């Protein structure tokens, strides 16, 4: 939902270490990050807050794979996965890398890197040289708003 990025973030994990000087917080051990309808599951999540000002947090999740879920305003959930997920709160920007995969209902996109703007619900997929981006679109589901 568009309003997700205004919601508080809840993170649960087996372990968490805070380094106050560098404003870095590292969560390890089946980490679950929840913000509104956004649900990220990873083995390790690093939350850095540049110069310590709130709202600019960058969440970097690592996993085998990291999974991402968000319910769209249109009622169609978006699911994604990849080896690494980077989520910038300030720009509501999600960046999936490492055989990234993003799907909405039966349409899906696969590539080395997929970027997804949560706010505008816009997605771009890239592949390294020599590899191709595979996209499967099921028109009937896409049009139905």
């Amino acid at each position, binding site marked *: *939902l*568009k*309003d997700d*990025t*205004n*919601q*508080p*973030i*809840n*993170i*649960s*994990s*087996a*372990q*968490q*270490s*805070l*380094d*106050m*000087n560098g*404003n870095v*917080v590292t*969560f390890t051990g089946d980490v679950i990050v929840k*913000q509104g309808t956004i649900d990220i599951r990873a083995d390790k999540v690093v*939350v850095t*807050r540049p110069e*310590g000002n*709130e*709202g600019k*947090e960058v969440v970097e999740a690592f996993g085998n794979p990291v999974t991402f879920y968000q319910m769209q*305003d249109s009622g169609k959930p978006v699911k994604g996965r990849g080896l690494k997920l980077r989520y910038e*709160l*300030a720009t509501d920007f999600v960046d999936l890398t490492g055989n990234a995969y993003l799907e909405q209902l039966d349409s899906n996109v696969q590539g080395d890197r997929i970027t997804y703007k949560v706010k505008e619900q816009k997605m771009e997929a890239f592949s390294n040289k020599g590899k191709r981006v595979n996209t499967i679109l099921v028109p009937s589901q896409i049009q139905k*708003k």
Partner: protein
Amino acid sequence: MSKTKLSLTIVLTLIALGLIGWNLADFDDNKTIVPPDDKEPTYQSQQMVTIVYNPEGQLNYKLTAEDVKYYATPEDTWFTKPVMIMYDKDKVATWSVRSDRAKLTKDRMLYLYDNVEVNSLTTTSQLERIKTNSADVNLVTQDISSDDHVTLYGANFTSEGMKMRGNLRSRTAKLIEKVKTYYEVQPKAGNETQPSS
């Protein structure tokens, strides 16, 4: 007339002397030697302030307490309502540690019991307060650890865990087991919820 006055003064002086003598004697009586038993504190003080410097002469920490009991045998010191202020190398107060009771052992370990609270005294620290029921602080390395439910309060985040290991000098803290963190996110300007189409 002067004779009676003279004899009167003599009698009075005798009585006075007798009284003083009796008083002194009495005074000696109650100083009976009590055998030292280690249940009783060797010494006890109220409103204690201890200031400790490190070998280089820099202020290390200041410890105040309402009541202090020092037991010679295990060489432990028990404090009631202790408050310890820790200083960094430029003599700036960085942390305050308080609890209901604390025990300082000779190997410079401070064991804190009940309503333990560590407060950051500097504004730069993201971590503002640590609350738990028991913790121990190694005064040499400034390591702090607790095996009790711990809550960390920071600049718009709170974290909870079952155990904690940390170091006050390097300002790092690690929560272990069932950790839950809650980040408050201020709605950014111009980000209010638009009616979904």
